[in-house]
């Protein structure tokens, strides 16, 4: 029994009796135990996983109704709440925080008999591209542990790439699912804004972020999306449109489809030569699949990183102000403080990147500066949206490399925030415009993964997964050495 099986194979294995949930979970936990000192994908492990697996096996044996995941291990980014367990956001501010409720996605997975195997590492409050800003130490890229796994959902990507989990849920505010998916050679989807409930996702920049499924195969991601998508009364921003079965017809192909190559993301000085070369291979693969390819220019893209950091810091400044250590938090004696000085003292426990964004977030929406920064950013966002919408009148898909650079070494960019922010240039557009985007692992070059990003129009996840599936079948990713 291999841990490297797809979600679909796992379900078939359970159904034909070749594996049991308990065996699989036990083997997974052993593997996690061995790998964690090296990979550090997890911040906490589900202590009841074996018992839960036994219960599910019992249900299977006695012929009771069993949920769609049949005890499959799924890891959850540690900014998504699971009742009764710790949810830390990889921050010292929440190091002891226990959520009193389940996120909607979590209750959905629980009710479908998934085993939530553990909570995965991230950049503190999901701010970063490398997990280097986790207060509890970084996760490591399983393809080469000297390299970052990407972020902020780095732990989720590592857990899937490192065979510690079959599937994972991350969150994507500016590429936080797609970036680590690309760096770790797995599939990561950022759904349409409003497709997946954010209830229980701890907000960083609430107007653009989404929870996203991650897996080793496109069809696995489609399966996971099937069970998390849809209207949720607890999240008024979820869309009311009915959701299709994302798995059925995933193999219809993309013959005759029109694909636009986003010029501003696929060329220029910032694009690594290796990434460019892999991307060219993907382009010809698309052509061989019968798609028509053409370059398209979206000139607003050049302003997206600036826009993204203005908008997200303004929202983060507000979203994170509740962490004042008054109602929950960590031990800090209040003796001798009045509440304002106590709050500032308590908030010094935020790490450097969060602090940096808090300071920016206090500034950009402030009186006298809002017009220059926040309101201008909102204007760019609207223009970009119009540009994307007009591009989708002509194209079915828009593609680019997921990240313009290869995975980098630890410490390489940590002291250069601007260089780090530029790694987001290809991913933030999907967040700013609300459209779905997926990263497909395409090649391993010199031991480092490179991914390809496909965008589709609002709520076109089914078509997006079909394109991802078609592309996936044009390449062979070598097996990982752990």
């Amino acid at each position, binding site marked *: 029994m291999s841990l490297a099986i797809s979600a679909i194979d796992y379900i078939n294995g359970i159904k034909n009796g070749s594996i049991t949930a308990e065996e699989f979970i036990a083997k997974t936990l052993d593997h996690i135990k061995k790998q964690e000192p090296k990979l550090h994908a997890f911040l906490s492990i589900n202590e009841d996983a074996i018992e839960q697996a036994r219960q599910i096996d019992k249900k299977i044996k006695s012929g009771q109704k069993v949920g769609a995941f049949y005890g499959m291990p799924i890891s959850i980014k540690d900014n998504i709440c699971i009742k009764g367990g710790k*949810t830390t*956001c990889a921050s010292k501010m929440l190091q002891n925080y226990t959520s009193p409720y389940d996120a909607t996605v979590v209750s959905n997975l629980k009710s479908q008999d998934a085993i939530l195997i553990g909570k995965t590492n991230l950049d503190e409050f999901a701010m970063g591209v490398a997990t280097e800003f986790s207060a509890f130490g970084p996760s490591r890229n399983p393809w080469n542990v000297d390299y970052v796994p990407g972020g902020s959902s780095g732990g989720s990507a590592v857990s899937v790439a490192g065979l510690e989990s079959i599937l994972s849920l991350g969150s994507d505010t500016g590429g936080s699912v797609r970036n680590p998916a690309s760096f770790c050679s797995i599939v990561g989807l950022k759904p349409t804004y409003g497709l997946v409930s954010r209830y229980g996702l701890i907000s960083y920049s609430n*107007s653009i972020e989404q929870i996203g499924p991650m897996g080793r195969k496109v069809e696995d991601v489609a399966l996971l999306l099937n069970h998390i998508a849809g209207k949720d009364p607890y999240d008024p921003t979820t869309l009311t449109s009915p959701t299709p079965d994302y798995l059925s017809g995933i193999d219809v192909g993309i013959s005759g489809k029109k694909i636009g190559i986003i010029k501003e993301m696929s060329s220029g000085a910032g694009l690594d030569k290796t990434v460019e070369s892999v991307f060219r291979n993907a382009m010809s693969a698309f052509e061989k699949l019968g798609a028509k390819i053409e370059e398209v220019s979206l000139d607003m893209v050049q302003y997206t990183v600036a826009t993204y950091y203005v908008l997200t810091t*303004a929202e983060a400044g507000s979203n994170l*102000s509740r962490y004042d250590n008054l109602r929950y938090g960590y031990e800090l004696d209040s003796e001798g403080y009045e*509440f*304002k000085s106590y709050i500032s003292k308590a908030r010094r426990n935020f790490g450097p990147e969060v602090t940096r964004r808090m300071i920016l977030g206090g500034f950009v929406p402030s009186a006298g500066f809002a017009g220059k920064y926040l309101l201008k950013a909102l204007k760019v966002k609207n223009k970009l949206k119009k540009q994307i919408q007009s591009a989708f009148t002509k194209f079915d898909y828009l593609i680019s490399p997921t990240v313009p650079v290869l995975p980098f070494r630890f410490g390489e960019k940590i002291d250069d925030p601007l260089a780090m922010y530029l790694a987001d240039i290809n991913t933030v557009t999907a967040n700013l415009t609300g459209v779905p985007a997926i990263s497909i692992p395409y090649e391993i070059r010199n031991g480092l993964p490179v991914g390809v990003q496909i965008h589709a129009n609002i709520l076109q996840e089914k078509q997006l997964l079909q394109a991802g599936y078609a592309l996936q079948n044009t390449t062979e990713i070598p097996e990982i050495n752990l």
Partner: protein
Amino acid sequence: MIGLEIHCQLTKLESKLFCTCKANYREFEPNTNICPTCMGMPGTLPRLNKKAVEKATMIAMALNCHTPERLGFFRKNYFYPDLPKNFQITQLNMYGPTSIGDQGKVSVEGKEIRIRRIQLEEDPGRLIYEGASEKTAITLVDYNRAGTPLVEIVTEPDFDNPRQVRIFLNVLSDLLQNLDVSDPTLEGAMRADANVSVQDGPRVEVKNIGSFHDLEKAIHFELTRQQSLKERGIEITQETRHWDDKRKITISSRSKEEDEDYRYILEGDIPWVIMDDHAIQSWKKKMPESISSKKERYITKYGIPLQVADVLSSDKYYSDLFEQAHHETNAKEIANLITTDLMGLVDTREKREQSKLIPKHLSDLVDMINSGKVTRSSAKNALVEIVKSGKSVAEIISSTGMTKISDSSELGKIIDEIISQESAAVQQAKENPQTINYLVGKVMQKTKGKADPAITLKILKEKIGI
């Protein structure tokens, strides 16, 4: 010039503005009317209470405001321990009219008071200072109130004097009660701050005013203070001052809190609410009849005198009683009974809550009066008993022997007694027939109000011979 900012809780709603905890937080032990959402726990999202939008819009319509095409919510960011998220979800018209209402007007004794805007927002929790002083070392926070629906009404600086302010607040309070959106008599349900300036001078905001009575005093104090500074050529500073409840003066608050930059941003977790005509029209239809329309109807339809109609229409408790108790023929008598006899018995919130009176009592009583079974003054006594016990009118009348005495022979005996006791008054009545009312009064006294006044007068006149 005086302008007001009034905060009014929508106390008649079932749940809080963004979760299903109770809007009526007053009955709970501290921190028991809370949930992850109103406590702002990480990951929670606000779910807008649609009823609150409906009720707040009714207030806007009653104050003749424009309603926007779409409603938006904004975050007002500031740190305070009573604010679980350290921002308050409120509304803002800086980027176009997206609050519940704007540009309204109300007429107060012929003076038009313009309403700048009305917004819907969440109330924070409550800070409780041990020993009731802000100087205490221990401050307790009760979040039961956090997230309850609040409507802020901002007027233009259109008031000329504190008296107009008081009348306006009474009108507003009656209006809110009549709309059945709020009970302003509940403690803390209606709060007001004032902006005061003299002769185009700088604007001074007066906060922390506990009651409307004090508001009038505070404005008066502030006007006098600013006037006397001006007379002495001393500059008036634009500032926020707090009302000192004990010393009855305003004090400069000098706190930095007042220059705070709230860094307003759009609340992206609440989608825009499209205010379509259909919804607005259906809410308009649901709105209770306005006070002025009721008054007009009472006067023209039933011939109720202006002053009685005024009292009856402006107090929802009375007008509800009236509406349920009256029909074509007894309306005037019901109105009289309420505004003369009942009023003193149910003039406070506590008395109303304890009262056992139902509308049927009033109509039954008026029937008894009209059919000559009880006198007006017996009816008054009966009301006291009804409010206390809730017993039926018939029961009270028979058990306490309030049945009117209209039997001539029985009355004749009593009148004979009075005539023999009051020879001086009898003599006077003979000389000046007007004074016979004194003797009628004596008979009423003797019969505890049960004597039929008309028959009494007739017999008296016969016996005295006038």
